[in-house]
Structure formats: structure tokens, C-alpha cells
């Protein structure tokens, strides 16, 4: 569903947009300073899981919305993987029509309250804002505004349940309840399909639930979205592993006509260095799952979690940042990031790095673990690290870290969280030998249709892309729904 220039232009010429543009001169608009979202102060927030960002007040949001120039060529849209009509929703905010703004978001994004919080805006929409590109000024705070509109709608209690077409009785199955699966399910339900989402874990939401911590994305926000899907008629089966509890053939016999796999890239990687299996060394998935999904830090739950005083987290992505900030909240005196490149190459969202720094996280950059040591009970107590320097750029375009001979030194640690990447979940490929996969284990799909080598199987999100982002997973869910719809209708009419 590509957004055409003509369509955007026609929208921009609507009288309400023309009126609101006329309210202020562009010069006055560009003179305004970017709003800064309130945050809970670091000393206080590390004592609990309270959300760090407080969100914008209505007047702050309107002020920020005034900065947007409603550009004739809104380059920001090209930076958004789902092409949200950014100026349109922002002008609705300026107009004080917050519920209308939320509706604009919902035209293309199924989970705006989530994306407003976790999108790497500085690399996407905001990177393409006119302010950033041409004026060399801070971009319009698109992410903050998106969150504001979505939160306003939710808190107003007037959340609209999207219109659902009359049921067509066609059963489709969704494997995995992460952002890809949820978005797909919502779109198919709107088209009148009978949709069931199968989820291996006991909770619905994928990484949004078991991975991203409460202090960044409260579970309740995800639950509200899931509730809406339920109201639209989507069925959820948790504790159901497709390929195990039942396989695709069984489900076909039960009447499912087509499937969407959004099973994610959830397998942790380790570095395979000596001592890595000592007690106290765990994957970020295990650490975050214990704390987020099992609520292990809460004394009322049965699941235990180790919470060390000297915690080293290996890696520089969002997962590493979430782990290290979790460690701080579990009472670590020293919570360290150990990353083999420099601050500039760090893949985590800029905001998370900033928040981590404010919270007293130490960054040991250009540094890589080489070995772990343990006490007589097998519990890790020390690690050897090696310094690195940056050499030539590698295939990813980032400068390759090169170990410096003789630079090794030891650090005392009692907990190590390994967060050096994830691999695709092999369950679905393994249970379907005819399914074409890459050498990395991701599912091969047609780029546009997201159809796999098995015609009735579509796929998207991390299982196709490897570890990517929430918004890309959602975009895939949306595109897959559109092309599965075409596929099923053609099949039916032939």
C-alpha cells in the first residue's frame, strides 16, 4: 500500500490543513525550540521498573506540533517503514483533535503506542525531517508526538475498535504473537477472516512482553492492543507450539487455509570462549525473560533470578542496554557495558544510551571478553578482557574491531549477561523440510508478497530479517496480510 505523492498532496489541500498552516508563519514555526519529554530522575527510577519517559502534556504536544512545517514534500514519511502520514497526524495535534490524530496513526500502524516508544526515530522518520536535512536543526519530535496521540486515545477510554468486515469463514493461522503476528492478525480480522494466533509461551506479545522491559514499554500498553484484537474476533491460543503441539498438516486438516509465520529470532548466541558455561553467565534472553516474563525480581513469584553486584553485559544493542539497565534496577553496584566497537558504532537507540549513562552505567568500549574464571562452586568471579582498536570497515560498513596484542586485563564480576545477537527460531523450518531457508536459518520469502516457497505459508518479521525492529516486523505483517488476501481470493475464484 504505497502512499502516492498525489494522494498526499490531495490530503494536504484539505481545507482544515490549509487553515492550520495559515495560523503561523514558517519563520515563527522554525524559531520554536524542540520540546523535551519529562523523565523520572535517574536516582529515583533505578529503584523500580517505573517508565522512564513521562510522555508529553497536551500543551507541550501542541507546541511541538506547531514546529512541523507540513512540508509540500514530506520527506519524513519516506523514513518511516510503514509510511505513517506524519504531517497529517501532527497537524491534527496542532488542531487539538487528538483522537483524530490517533486515527491517522491507525491508518497504517497497528501499535502506535508501542512504536512511539521503541522506534529508533533518530535513524528513521526524524532523520528524514526537513529540520534535520535542510535546516540542520533538531527534527520535529515525531516519536514523542506519536506516543502522545496514542496514549491520549487509550487514556480517553474512547479507543475505537476498527470496523471488521462480515466473516468470510476462511480460517487462517498465525504462528507467533510478536508485532509481526499481531499486526497480521489485526489486518486479516478487518478483512473478515477467522484468525487464530498460536503462541509458544504462556503470554501473548513476543519480544514486547518477554524482552523489552517495563521501564521502556509497560506491559499494560501491549495488553490493551491485544484486547482490541480480541474484540475484533482474533482468537489466541497460548502454550501452543506449532510444529510440536500440532504441526501444519494437522492444522490444515482442521480447516486452516493459509499461515503467517512471525516466529521471531529468539535463539541466543554465545561467544564460545573458555568458561562461558559457569554459573552466573547467562544470555540476555534468559535474564530478561526471568525478569520481564516471569517477574522474577518480585518476591511473590517462584522464579529466581541472580542479581549480582558487579554485572557485565556483553554487547551494544538494545538488548544489551535493556539488560544492563535491568541489572542496575536489581541492585548492581557496578553495571557495565562491554562493547567491542566505540560509542559511535553502538546499534542501540540513542535515547537508551543516554538514559543508561544518566543511570550510572559504565561503558567499557573497544573491549572484548576472552575468558571467564570461577570460584570452587563454579560461580563466575572474574573475566579477562582484551582491548580493541578500529580497523577497516567490514561488510556492514562499520569499522572492524581488531584485538590489541598484550592489552588483556581482568575485571571482577559476579554476573555476566551475554547479548551478542540472536538467531532465527528453527522450529518452523525444522518441521517443514520443503520450506526454503537461507544459510542463516531465516525463511526465504518473495520480497513484495512475503510468500515463502510453500504457497500457503507467508512469513515476516525477525524470522525473515534476522534481528530487526518492531516497526519493520509490523510492516511485514501488514504487507503479508494484503498479499495473503489476494492469494486466497484468487484461489477461491479460480
Amino acid at each position, binding site marked *: 500500500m504505497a502512499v502516492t505523492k498525489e494522494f498526499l498532496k490531495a490530503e494536504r489541500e484539505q481545507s482544515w490543513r490549509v487553515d492550520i498552516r495559515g495560523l503561523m508563519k514558517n519563520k515563527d514555526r522554525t524559531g520554536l525550540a524542540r520540546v523535551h519529554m519529562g523523565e523520572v530522575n535517574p536516582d529515583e527510577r533505578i529503584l523500580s521498573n517505573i517508565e522512564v519517559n513521562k510522555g508529553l502534556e497536551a500543551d507541550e504536544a501542541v507546541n511541538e506540533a506547531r514546529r512541523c512545517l507540513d512540508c509540500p514534500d514530506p520527506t519524513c514519511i519516506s523514513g518511516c517503514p510503514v509510511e505513517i502520514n506524519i504531517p497529517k497526524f501532527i497537524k491534527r495535534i496542532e488542531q487539538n483533535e487528538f483522537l483524530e490524530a490517533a486515527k491517522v496513526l491507525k491508518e497504517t500502524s497497528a501499535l502506535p503506542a508501542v512504536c512511539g516508544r521503541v522506534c529508533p526515530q533518530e535513524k528513521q522518520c526524524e532523520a528524514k525531517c526537513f529540520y534535520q536535512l535542510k535546516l540542520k536543526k533538531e527534527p520535529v519530535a515525531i516519536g514523542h508526538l506519536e506516543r502522545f496521540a496514542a496514549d491520549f486515545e487509550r487514556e480517553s477510554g474512547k479507543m475505537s475498535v476498527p470496523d471488521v468486515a462480515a466473516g468470510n469463514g476462511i480460517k487462517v493461522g498465525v504462528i507467533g504473537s510478536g508485532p509481526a503476528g499481531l499486526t497480521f492478525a489485526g489486518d486479516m480480522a478487518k478483512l473478515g477472516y477467522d484468525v487464530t494466533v498460536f503462541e509458544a509461551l504462556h503470554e501473548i506479545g513476543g519480544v514486547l512482553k518477554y524482552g523489552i522491559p517495563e521501564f521502556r514499554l509497560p506491559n499494560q500498553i501491549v495488553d490493551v492492543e491485544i484486547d482490541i484484537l480480541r474484540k475484533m474476533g482474533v482468537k489466541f491460543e497460548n502454550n501452543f507450539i506449532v510444529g510440536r*503441539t500440532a504441526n501444519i498438516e494437522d492444522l490444515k486438516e482442521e480447516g486452516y487455509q493459509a499461515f503467517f509465520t512471525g516466529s521471531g529470532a529468539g535463539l541466543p548466541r554465545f561467544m564460545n570462549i573458555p568458561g562461558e558455561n559457569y554459573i552466573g553467565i547467562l*544470555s540476555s534472553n534468559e535474564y530478561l525473560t526471568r525478569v520481564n516474563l516471569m517477574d522474577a525480581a518480585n518476591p511473590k513469584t517462584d522464579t529466581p533470578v541472580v542479581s549480582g553486584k558487579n554485572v557485565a553485559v556483553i554487547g551494544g544493542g538494545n538488548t544489551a542496554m535493556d539488560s544492563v539497565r535491568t541489572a542496575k534496577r536489581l541492585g548492581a553496584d557496578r553495571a557495565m557495558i562491554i562493547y567491542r566497537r566505540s560509542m559511535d558504532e553502538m546499534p542501540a537507540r540513542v535515547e537508551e544510551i543516554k538514559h543508561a549513562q544518566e543511570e550510572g552505567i559504565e561503558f567499557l568500549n573497544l573491549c572484548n571478553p576472552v575468558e571467564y574464571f570461577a570460584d570452587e562452586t563454579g560461580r563466575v568471579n572474574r573475566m579477562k578482557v582484551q582491548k580493541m582498536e578500529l580497523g577497516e570497515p567490514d561488510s556492514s560498513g562499520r569499522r572492524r574491531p581488531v584485538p590489541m596484542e598484550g592489552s588483556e586485563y581482568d575485571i571482577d564480576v559476579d554476573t555476566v549477561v551475554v547479548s551478542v545477537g540472536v538467531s532465527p527460531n528453527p522450529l518452523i523450518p525444522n518441521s517443514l523440510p520443503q520450506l526454503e531457508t537461507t544459510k542463516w536459518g531465516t525463511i526465504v520469502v518473495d520480497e513484495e508478497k512475503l510468500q515463502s516457497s510453500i504457497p500457503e505459508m507467508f512469513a515476516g518479521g525477525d524470522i525473515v530479517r534476522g534481528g530487526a525492529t518492531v516497526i519493520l516486523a509490523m510492516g511485514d505483517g501488514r504487507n503479508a496480510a494484503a498479499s495473503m488476501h489476494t492469494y486466497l481470493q484468487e484461489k477461491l475464484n479460480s
Partner: protein
Amino acid sequence: MNEIIEKEFFSENVVRLEIKAPRIAKARRAGHFVIVKVGETGERIPLTIASANPHKGTITLVIQRVGVSSRRIAELNVGDEITDLVGPLGEATHIENFGTVLACGGGVGVAPLLPIVEALKKAGNKVITVIAARNKDLIILEDQIKEYSDEVIVMTDDGSYGEKGLVTDAMEKVLQREKVDLSVVIGPAIMMKFAALTTRKYEVPTYASLNTIMVDGTGMCGACRITVGGKTKFVCIDGPEFDAHQVDFDEMLLRLGGYKEIEKQAEQEYLQTKEKK
């Protein structure tokens, strides 16, 4: 969902539950396990499917009470529902006619051994089974094991039943007496370690079913990882059965103790709050 339809005590601390779970009953093979969680705040723990009845749509679990979570399950009664039950998980046991098989189960390890013994017998093997426990009260499933074994040797540490001695004593006797083609051992890690050392002397291929700590049971966390032949493996997806002669049991024993202190404390608190009620 997951309703308990039968409950039986094998001993004070070992209980058998038959649970309605039609899909799992249909899909499971010998060697598979499930992950169970009781209550909203419960922990996810792995339990072997001891047997299943696809016609009735039920699976049977045998649970030994060792800590908080196993107690919570053992305390459920007929009519109760298990909050979360997922499976079948793990790789199924490779079954064929090997010839003579020496199967050994220690403690509650006899429960996961039962479906394997049954499958081996049905595949035409001569099955010699050793079941062992600390004392008479802890010997479980003797009759069921007998049904599918050509010979059963019962061992107790204190001699209160069967012969006095360890699993490995009985194993030695059999291995000296006749040619064994395969051995399967399931029980506490320490027992499996010594059982593996015993069969290694006689160069008998041996499988051990490992019971590591797990969280998700689907390969997502790595809590269950162990070293086999120098390589890291995940018990939940690569196992739970491995070549016992390649497993680093010492590392596994250390890792099993990873949460011991927290668990002990949790159990004490649990028992105290129960007393208050």
C-alpha cells in the same frame, strides 16, 4: 483446559497425575517432556511425559516433590486445572531393535524411563531394567516396569527392599554376565555420571536423559546448556538425551546448583506460609 482427572501417591513425595491434554497426548513420543506452570506467579518447570493415552486424550506425569514448584503441582487435586502446560518438547528417543538393552532409573528417574522401556520392549529388544532408590518407599512404578522388562533388578541404598547397593553395582553384575548392546540411564546427575563411567569400561554405548534447569524449554534462553563432546548444547532442543560418555557431568552438576540458595530459602518461606494457613 489441562484438567487433572486422576491422582495417586506412589510415596509421600512422589505423585502421579493424569491430565487432560488431547493434543499433547496425540503428538508425544517416548522421551518427550512438557513445561508446566502452576498459578499466575508460578515457575515454568520441565516434567517428562511418563505415559499417554491418545484415545482418552490424557498424559501422565510423575512428580517428585523437591522444592516449591514441584510441591505446587503435587498439591493439585482431581478437578483442578494446571494453569499452563506446553509440549511435547525435546527430541524423542531413538528407538530400534538394538538387541540387549540395560535400562537404569534412579529415584524419580524411573518415571521418564518407563516410556522408553516400553518402546524398547515393543521394538523387540531384550530389556533388563535396574530401578534404584534410597529406600523401599522411594521405589516407584515397579509393576509397570516389570510389564515391559525381561528382567528387573531392584536396588536400595539401605537394603530395605531388593538388593542393597547402588545402581552401578547392579549394572556391573549384568555387564559382566552378558553382552549388552545399549544402555539408557536416567536419574540424578551424580548417578548418571557414575553409570556412564561404568558402561564406558565395558564400551557399551549409553544414553543419559539430562534434567537441567530450564525456563522456556524451546531453545530461547540457554539456561539448560551443557557441554557434550566439548560443544555447548541446549538440553531442551538438542536433548534431553545425549551420549552419556561425552557429557561433562561435573559442569552439569555445578550448573544445577546455580539457584540452590535462593531455592532453599524460597522453600522454607513457602512451608512457613503454609503452616500459618
